[in-house]
């Protein structure tokens, strides 16, 4: 009897939308990784310089790159716990967890924040200028750190407000205006830094970069993490970003504001009819999203050992765009973002390992990520694969809207029970 009960419980779990979505996410991850592995093997077959054995070695690295310990003297690639890799994974996860939160938060409100790269850039500029221009001889570095972090968030938020206002008050699609603000940010940041004293003129050949914040003795505290993960760049930033995820989770699922945002995302007209100030909420959602992206930039560049290449006018930062796959994989769940962010950065570590130890290069991980995003775009179909019920008519126009809708439905069902 007990068994049967457990079994039916398990089946109920599978029937739940969230479980199905999770399975769909895992499936897109698997397909993505297999696509990367397949490409690697195909190259191995056609390239005379690369043997099939090397191909399989590379495939192993794609799957378990974060555990790689480099080549042994016998030429074999060793696997095991590697403090450097896992520490660096956490370090790189820090900014993309924040941009992932940014995109998720906007998703929940029915907005697609493709403007995260621009907000990230503006946040970077504000952070660096604050961190480098307040003399650490007068102000304690901790205070400067906090000010720099806050200014990164503030300016990121301001940059997010622009598409928010355009969307709320003029009805312009936030995707279009975000693309414009992204490129305006890219040029603006170049302009700001072009002849500025913040460029690293001290070291030769480094004038294309902004000084590290450690030049002004502003660095993120390590909190002993560097002892656990020896030789890596990890610092307390990862803890800050995890805290941010928890805060966003609480805001979205436990507060009135979160409910209002989700209501706006679901159906703005209905929400306004119910007395929610829809326009106001859209602008607010974009401000928070921008602030999160800017904060991610601040956490990355305040670490003290990262350099910012200031001539950004030709390309946008990948950390901003990677917020999109992170949010999609986590199905916009803020706590899930922590895991999908770590997964994405584990992939990029794997790419680095590929570049160091095989004839392949790090771009393979970007391919894997792109395939995952592509599949997430039609995750609705994937999700329905797991559903035995007859498909309900679902409006498939916009993924975020559906997500919000489904959540509200689930909550309602729970309330009824």
């Amino acid at each position, binding site marked *: 009897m007990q068994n049967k009960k457990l079994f039916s419980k398990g089946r109920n779990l599978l029937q739940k939308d969230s479980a199905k979505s999770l399975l769909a996410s895992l499936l897109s991850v698997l397909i993505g990784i297999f696509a990367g592995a397949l*490409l690697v093997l195909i*190259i191995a077959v056609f*390239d005379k310089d690369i043997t099939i054995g090397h191909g399989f070695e590379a495939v192993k690295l794609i799957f378990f790159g974060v555990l790689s310990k480099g080549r042994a003297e016998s030429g074999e690639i060793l696997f095991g716990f590697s403090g450097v890799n896992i520490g660096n994974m956490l370090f790189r996860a820090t900014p993309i967890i924040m941009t992932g939160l940014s995109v998720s938060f906007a998703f929940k409100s029915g907005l*697609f924040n*493709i403007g995260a790269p621009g907000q990230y850039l503006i946040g970077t500029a504000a952070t660096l200028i604050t961190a480098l221009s307040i003399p650490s001889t007068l102000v304690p570095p901790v205070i400067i750190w906090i000010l720099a972090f806050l200014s990164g968030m503030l300016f990121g938020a301001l940059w997010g407000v622009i598409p928010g206002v*355009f969307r709320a008050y*003029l*009805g*312009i699609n936030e*995707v*279009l*205006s975000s*693309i*414009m*603000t*992204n*490129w*305006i940010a*890219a*040029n*603006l940041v*170049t*302009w700001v830094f*072009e002849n500025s004293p913040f460029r690293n003129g001290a070291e030769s050949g480094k004038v294309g970069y902004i000084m590290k914040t450690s030049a002004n003795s502003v660095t993120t505290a390590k909190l002993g993490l560097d002892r656990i993960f020896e030789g890596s760049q990890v610092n307390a930033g990862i803890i800050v970003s995890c805290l941010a995820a928890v805060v966003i989770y609480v805001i979205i699922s436990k507060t009135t504001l979160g409910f209002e945002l989700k209501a706006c995302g679901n159906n703005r007209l209905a929400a306004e009819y119910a007395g929610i100030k829809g326009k106001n909420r859209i602008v607010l959602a974009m401000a928070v999203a921008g602030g999160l992206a800017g904060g991610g930039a601040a956490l990355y560049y305040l670490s003290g050992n990262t350099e910012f290449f200031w001539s950004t*006018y*030709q*390309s*946008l930062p990948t950390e901003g*765009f990677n917020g*999109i*796959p992170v949010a*999609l994989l986590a199905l916009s769940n803020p706590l899930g973002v922590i895991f999908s962010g770590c997964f994405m950065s584990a992939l990029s570590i794997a790419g680095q390992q590929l570049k160091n130890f095989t*004839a*392949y*290069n790090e*771009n*393979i991980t*970007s*391919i894997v*990520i*792109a*395939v995952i*995003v*592509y599949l*997430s*775009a*039609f995750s*609705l*179909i994937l999700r329905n694969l797991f559903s035995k019920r007859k498909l309900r*008519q679902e409006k*498939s*126009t*916009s*993924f975020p809207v559906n997500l919000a809708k489904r959540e509200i439905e689930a909550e309602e069902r729970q309330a009824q029970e």
Partner: protein
Amino acid sequence: MSFLIQQTIIYTIPLLIVALAGIFAERSGVINLALEGTMIFGAFIGVLFINISQANGWFQKENAQLLLILTMAVSAFFGALFSLLLSFAAVNMKANQTISGTALNMLSPALTLFFISVITNQNVLSMYEGDAASWFMLKRSDFGFEATESLNFFESTFLIRNYLTTYICIAIYIILSVILYRTKFGLRLRSCGENPHASDSLGINVKKMRYIGTTISGALAGMGGFVFSLTTANASATGDVAGFGFLALAVMIFGNWNPISVAGAAFLFGLFKCIAAAYATIDINGDGVFTLAQLGISTNLYRMLPYVITLVVLAFTSKHSRAPKAEGIPYDKSKR
């Protein structure tokens, strides 16, 4: 003056042709955010084709123009192939087109750079021999001018030191615009972007039309990407087209999805790009004074202006925007 015009043409043509690519996709009801990615892919394929042809000696320098035309066709073909990924997601899988477009924009540079570094062990793929100007630029001898013959303004501006691609692209732009706006086929395609249910009820195959629109869009964007890399990057592929795909989207919105306005917008934006790239050396009226350089306006401002203007124009014209009504909405037969 001729220098200014020639430089402006160089930046205008890719914008023009890629903006038309955007029009075709959006008019059929699919938002093609992947224009940037398709351009990158087209540029890579084009340069790769030139590289391989030169390495195998298929074409000599005398037949360079033939090679150029063939390369345009090849990159258009592969651009169309690449765009099938978008139409599959958007039409068959009813996916969110913004996300699929973003995915393709991530996929294309990654794939391109992956292959470039596997092929060359570097991050750039160039021509096998020679450079773009010496191989493909139109020379005096191509028109039968003597080396010492003095040329009039028209000849020296629009004939020599131009690329054949410019005129092919303009011809394609005109022909396709006429097809889209003056033929039965064009009307049907546009109807799918405005009211697909009405089109379907009249016997038009909406899925097929959207596939056609997106495929033409991919072909044009792939070709535009190659033209961009040929004329501005000395026929090399780096997995990057400096945001031209997004700028083309801006051109399309600025031009309100209308070919004539889009051509004007492309020229305006091309002028800005040209000024930003070369404002210190532009001598407008030939009196030896570099007026623009003396104005002392930062090159960054010129680079930024197209996007700012688009944003401002969006703000003022959003009420009269002529964006296709059904763009971005997957067609679902069961919903009327």
